[in-house]
Structure formats: C-alpha cells, structure tokens
C-alpha cells in the first residue's frame, strides 16, 4: 500500500514536470519571437543609420 502511495506521488510529480516542460517550450517560442520583433524594430525602416541610439546595442538575455 505504501508503495502504491509512493508510486502515485511519483506519477503526479512527473505530470507536473511535463507541464513545466510544455510551458517552457511556449515561453521559449514567445521569447524568440520577441527577440525577432525587437531586431526588426531596432533596425530603422529606411537606412543603415541608427537614429534611436544605444537601446538596441544591448543583447537581450
């Protein structure tokens, strides 16, 4: 019976772990997208110059 309880606890913990992993994939995808958007926003629409200055020199992360 004790083994039963332990087994159940282990299964629950594993389920929780896989929720964490799933969520992490979501946040990673969102972060990638955010980084891409920032790089689009940081490069000025017209030319190569960087009118907006130092905010886009910073690596995110």
């Amino acid at each position, binding site marked *: 019976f004790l083994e039963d309880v332990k087994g159940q606890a282990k299964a629950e913990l594993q389920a929780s772990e896989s929720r*964490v992993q799933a969520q*992490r994939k979501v*946040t990673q995808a969102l*972060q990638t997208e*955010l*980084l891409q958007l*920032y790089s689009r926003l940081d490069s000025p629409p017209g030319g190569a110059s960087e009118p907006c200055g130092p*905010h886009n020199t*910073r690596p*995110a*992360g």
Partner: protein
Amino acid sequence: AYYEKVGFRGVEEKKSLEILLKDNPLDVEKLCTFSQRFPLPSMYRVHVWKVLLGILPPHSESQALVAGYRREQYTDVLQALQVMRFLHAATPQVEVYLRMFQLEGQELPRLSELTPPEEEDEDFLAIAKAMEEIVEDPVDCYWLIKCFVNQFNNKFGDSIPHLPKSLEHYLSQEDGRLLAHLKACGALRRLPHSLWFRRCFAGCFPESSLQRVWDKVISGSCKILVFVAVEVLLSYKIMLMAMNKPEAIVQFLSSMPQENTDAIVTKAIDLWHKYCGTPMHSV
C-alpha cells in the same frame, strides 16, 4: 560574568538548535518556538528562515530537489525579464527583485509604461535592500524577500493598521510622561509608523540588529515590532522630551543613530516576553 553567562547560553542554544535541525522531517513548529525564544545563530539563520518560510521542505530527502526547483523558477523569471528588456546591466539588484516579484504577482507594468520604482514600491525595496545585506546567494535572497513579504502581508496585513494603537497602549504602561509629551506636541500620530510596521525597521537598523527582529517576525510575531518601537522611544526619551516640534521628532526617528540598536532590540525582546509571555513549547 554577564557576558560569560550569555556566551554559555549561546552555546547551549546552538546545541539545542543543532539537535532540532537533525530531525527528519524537521519539526517546523519547534523551529518556530525556538526562533521566538532565542536568537538564531547566524550560521543557521538563512537555513532556518528558508524552512520557516516554506522555501525548503521539512524532509531532508526532498530538499535538494526542491532547491533545484526554486533555482529554475528564479532563472525562468529573470531570463524572461531580460528578454523583455525590463532589466539591463545597470539595473540595481533590488529593482531586479522588484520586477521579478511584480511579474510573479501579475503586477508588472507594461514596458512602455515602466517608470522608475515608485513610492508604493519603497517598502519592498527597503526590505529587499536589507535582505541583500543578510543573504549572499541571489536565488536564496529573492525567495526570502518574496516569501517574507508575502507571508507578512497575508498573515499580518489585518493587524498592521492596529499596531500604532498598540504602541500607544504599551508606551502608556512603560512611560506615561513620554506618551503625554508626544501627544501634547502632536507627534504621536506622525511617528514613522510605515518605516516601523510596514518595512519592519528595514533601513532603520543595521542588519546585525535587524535580523534578530526578523527572526521573530518570520517565526510568527508582528507584535515584536511594537515593542521595538516602544524601546526606540524609551531609549531616546531625553532627546525626545527636549523636542517640541513634531517635524523634528519625526526627522530624528526616521534617521536614528545606529549605535545602540543592538541594546534596543535586546530590551525590546525582553519587553515582548514580559507582556506576551515566553513561548513554552519545549525545545
């Protein structure tokens, strides 16, 4: 002889705490009682605080696993804030903790509306700053700040507004003349209640004294704050009696001298035990 006695007592206390810490699972209630009665030896303080605040579980076999979870959670939140450009290399560490706390509490402003920390954040920042002085590891530090603040608000949020009244009551027991003076010159209502009761004296006392007060707060008493305030007033009675302008009194109390805060805390703990009794749970 006094110091010998205190030193001896200290050794005995340390031993009995070590026995408690060998329990598996830890008896959190006994650890609470110990912290209420005695000062925690500094080498065990962070560990005991983490157990009392639920950051570490009582079972020793689970502690490494849970500590790993805590670290992961910290990293996840921190990293997201960096990617979102809420944090920069120059962001002060306490502000990092504030943004992490806000994100986890769903109170993070939008980046475009982000302003430097505001007055309502000052209590958090003061507590964070003090915790940073006490705790070296940033992961431990963040978790301790977060759980300290959350526990304090959840457990004592309803009591905090009553503490000024309680202060008045105990001051009347201890020194009616001082109380009458503070009342007469209009300073009583303007005492730095927020500094004392919302920040738990963070920024007011040096960390060495502060952590002895926080031992009591973390193990379950917010009333200790009242007795510390009483002792602050009693300690500076002569000076306070000589001041008649409430502004001067508030000013003085808000930036108190830092010299004898240890003695103030010791007396405050004695006074607290005198009025509220010493917790008797055997340890």
